């Protein structure tokens, strides 16, 4: 294939040897430490203030480092982690239902369809229990039982109740806990917070990440910020699809700029399409809204058995309904993992049995649960979600079943990191959704919050110390040629975006790019479709640089300019996603290749050829990328075909 070449494999992930349950302890013991007096002399830049970035910045500052934190929102409290609804997993086994660190580890490796790194996942499961302790101590108002102890519930892909939650606003409450810890450090003068600042370039000096170039989104001022290490916690890239459940501002620019400077990008094609979102209502649609997966605990998913059955849902008798998840997957039923639930919804809609005005929808029906538990109990559990549904659709889900359809929600891929969460650029650490590390080809519900906080509170603060202890690094200032060049690149790019002055808006390009990606690199991919997508993306990218219109100037608040920079990077990422999806000639988790399925339509992995992480090296826009393989070894969880039947 002319799209990529193969380079050296990645030989060392820096994971310690030995029994998997001892590796994290050993790593922490072997890691070098930084004397508290020396920490004050070390500066760490943290980009992003979500669960990963907020918790990391707060923790590093508590430990005595000088921290500079950046976010594009007007306050660190608004990072998109706030929108996570359902919950956070932890292997506390408070239910005495057979849970354990090993079971959470096992479920996560299996749920990721055997495409994640065992060492990392085990560490995640170990640390999960500390997260709950930490958050409770901060005053996070988790749901509780009448005896005053914490309540838990079950979530997709698991048969134990290990998900802690705060109504439908778990992400918000966990984020506010981290945000408040961060604000405390800001108040103490240990963190310099820079809200409404966007990272536009990474500064690499002598092969090490030493800073970033940022734009003050209020004044337009470009500045170079230097430090001893840089942490990217800038989230995922789901907005490459234009329509997703991500916040409108979520973007790939921070990680993509780092990729262009030498950080490998791993498994970009692994995207999570969430099964329970409110269907698209028209061309004006600007984003999609998730209905928490927790709804699948009590809601039953169905479509009419007959094609083209246009009766109102309540007029369709029980015998003429197909509860297809319960039928196909009797043991997990409505709680199958997300990738499986999404594809099943697509299949029934493709077979002409979809519901609603667009026929791209399935019912999520609470009638049985309301009969069984009473309306009050359902209100207590899901009241805010039902209200949100009604506000958006104008329909009352207590009376008529919800209509749902899959939507882009999360990206498992991200910058490649080793066991220490360090990228291929020394001194550049990547945490949370921005890295690729723990979820393999499919993330289980309630595991994103767990990973973000594990990385930020517990993993990064240990591993970054080991790096910083290897210093001191040579002092650099903004006059260093590498810093000057990075800054000039940023200024040049802004000038070029403003200079095109064409006849199409940024949004019109973004929408079109999103359609290409959803069509060809969404829930189902094929070789022909992906090749077509690559051609279309290239053509559209060229057109963008000839026809985009960015009004105003770079001096001051200019939201069109912000969007234009992000969309320009999405074009480049989109191509890499398609190349990755094309090269992976198997189906696994969220990556489903039409050519590779079992006779009953399930994902067919090819472990002989593809049990590896695909880490891509950038060589120039439009140039063939270089593939570096990190082989995955499974010593504890033996790869099998996932079965949720």
């Amino acid at each position, binding site marked *: 294939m002319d799209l990529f070449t193969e380079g050296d494999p990645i030989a060392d992930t820096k994971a310690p040897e030995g029994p998997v349950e001892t590796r994290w302890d050993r790593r922490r013991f072997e890691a070098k430490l930084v004397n508290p007096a020396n920490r004050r002399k070390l500066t760490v830049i943290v980009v992003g203030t979500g669960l990963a970035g907020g918790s990391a910045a707060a923790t590093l500052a508590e430990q005595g480092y000088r921290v500079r934190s950046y976010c594009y929102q007007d306050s660190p409290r608004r990072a*998109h982690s706030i929108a996570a609804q359902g919950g956070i997993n932890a292997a506390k086994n408070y239910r005495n239902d057979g849970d354990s660190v090993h079971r959470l580890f096992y479920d996560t490796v299996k749920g990721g369809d055997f495409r994640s790194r065992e060492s990392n996942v085990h560490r995640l499961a170990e640390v999960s229990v500390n997260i709950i302790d930490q958050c409770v101590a901060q005053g996070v108002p988790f749901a509780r039982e009448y005896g005053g102890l914490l309540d838990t519930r079950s979530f997709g892909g698991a048969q134990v109740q290990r998900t802690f939650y705060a109504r439908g606003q778990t992400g918000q409450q966990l984020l506010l806990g981290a945000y408040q810890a961060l604000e405390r450090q800001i108040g103490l003068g240990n963190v310099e917070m820079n*809200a409404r600042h966007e990272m536009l370039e990474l500064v690499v000096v002598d092969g090490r990440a030493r800073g970033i170039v940022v734009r003050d989104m209020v004044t337009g001022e470009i500045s170079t910020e230097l430090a001893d290490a840089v942490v990217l916690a800038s989230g995922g890239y789901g907005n490459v699809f234009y329509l997703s459940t991500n916040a409108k501002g979520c973007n790939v620019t921070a990680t993509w700029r780092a990729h262009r400077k030498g950080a490998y990008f791993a498994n970009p094609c692994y995207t999570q399409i969430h099964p329970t979102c409110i269907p698209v209502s028209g061309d004006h649609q600007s984003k999609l809204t998730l209905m928490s997966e927790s709804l699948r605990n009590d809601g039953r998913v169905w479509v009419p058995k007959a094609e083209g059955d246009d009766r109102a849902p309540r007029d369709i008798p029980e015998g003429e309904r197909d509860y297809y998840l319960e039928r196909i997957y009797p043991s997990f039923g409505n709680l199958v993992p997300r990738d499986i639930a999404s594809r099943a919804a697509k299949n029934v809609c493709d077979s002409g049995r979809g519901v609603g005005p667009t026929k791209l929808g399935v019912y999520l029906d609470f009638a049985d649960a309301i009969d069984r538990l009473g309306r009050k109990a359902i209100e207590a559990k899901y009241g805010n979600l039902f209200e949100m549904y009604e506000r958006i659709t104008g329909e009352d889900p207590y009376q008529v079943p919800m209509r749902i359809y899959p939507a882009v929600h999360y990206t498992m891929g991200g910058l490649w990191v080793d066991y220490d969460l360090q990228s291929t650029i020394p001194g550049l650490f990547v945490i949370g959704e921005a890295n690729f590390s723990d979820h393999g080809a499919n993330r289980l519900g309630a595991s994103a919050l767990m990973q973000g906080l594990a990385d930020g509170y517990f993993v990064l603060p240990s591993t970054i110390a080991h790096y910083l202890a290897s210093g001191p690094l040579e002092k650099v200032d903004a006059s260093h040629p590498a810093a000057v060049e990075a800054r000039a690149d940023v200024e040049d790019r802004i000038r070029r975006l403003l200079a095109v002055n064409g006849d199409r808006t940024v949004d019109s390009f973004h929408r079109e790019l999103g359609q290409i990606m959803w069509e060809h690199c969404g829930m189902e991919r094929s070789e022909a479709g992906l090749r077509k997508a690559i051609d279309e993306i290239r053509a559209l990218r060229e057109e963008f640089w000839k026809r985009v219109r960015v009004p105003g100037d770079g001096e001051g608040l200019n939201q069109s300019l912000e969007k234009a920079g992000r969309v320009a990077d999405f074009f480049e990422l989109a191509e890499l996603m398609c190349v990755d999806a094309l090269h992976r000639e198997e189906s696994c988790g969220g990556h489903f290749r039409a050519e590779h399925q079992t006779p009953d339509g399930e994902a067919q992995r090819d472990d002989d050829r593809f049990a590896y992480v695909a880490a891509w090296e950038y060589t120039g826009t439009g140039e063939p990328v270089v593939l570096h393989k990190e082989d995955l070894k499974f010593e504890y969880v033996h790869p099998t075909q996932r079965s949720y039947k």
Partner: protein
Amino acid sequence: MNLTLRIWRQRGPEDKGRMVTYQVDDVSPDMSFLEMLDVLNERLILSGEEPVAFDHDCREGICGMCGLMINGDAHGPQRGTTACQLHMRQFSDGDTIDIEPWRARAFPVIKDLVVDRGAFDKIIAAGGYITAPTGSAPEAHSTPVAKANADAAFTSAACIGCGACVAACPNGSGMLFTAAKLTQLSLLPQGQPERYTRVVGMVDAHDEAGFGGCTNAGECTVVCPKGIPLNTIGRLNRDYLAATAKGGGTPGS
């Protein structure tokens, strides 16, 4: 639907600002309010004008970034709803809609409908937390919390920091925001050790940031998209009195 919009346009913090009238046609009742503004902005860009700047991010009512005065109501006519979750089916064909930024001394306008709410962060930094450095936490079940208290703490914790309470208040007071955080933390056993230093620190920061005082007008709780109850301010006052009457700010709890 065809609508007339009268929108506050202000080039920057120093500009005087003015209302400008725009016509928007073919609005679908299924659009959100912000999607309707997107339609206007697409048109403005193509006709060579600057689009209307407004803050928004999650568009699902939880990040707290959006905030518009719509016909004089913070977040518009629908109770318990942020501007991003407001849908055009709440309006009628032919309506004229006034759209303005939050107006409060503590929230200066940056551009058009975008304001600076950094003062809220300063209130939190002055005590809106429980000191629990990472790693120091005891086992989560070592301290049970009565369900009623946990639920009431949650109700207050639901605040999204959007600032509607301030915009609606005749005094530009940020008391509901401050009281929501104080109530959450003071209802939990973990929050007791700092309870009285917290209330003094946060109220002082609130006053220093230029917010007005609370006179129990109650407008705040009416417009609050998350239904933060007014009685949180009563709790704030009680704790503030307890803290200051005893002089040192740190009576035993």
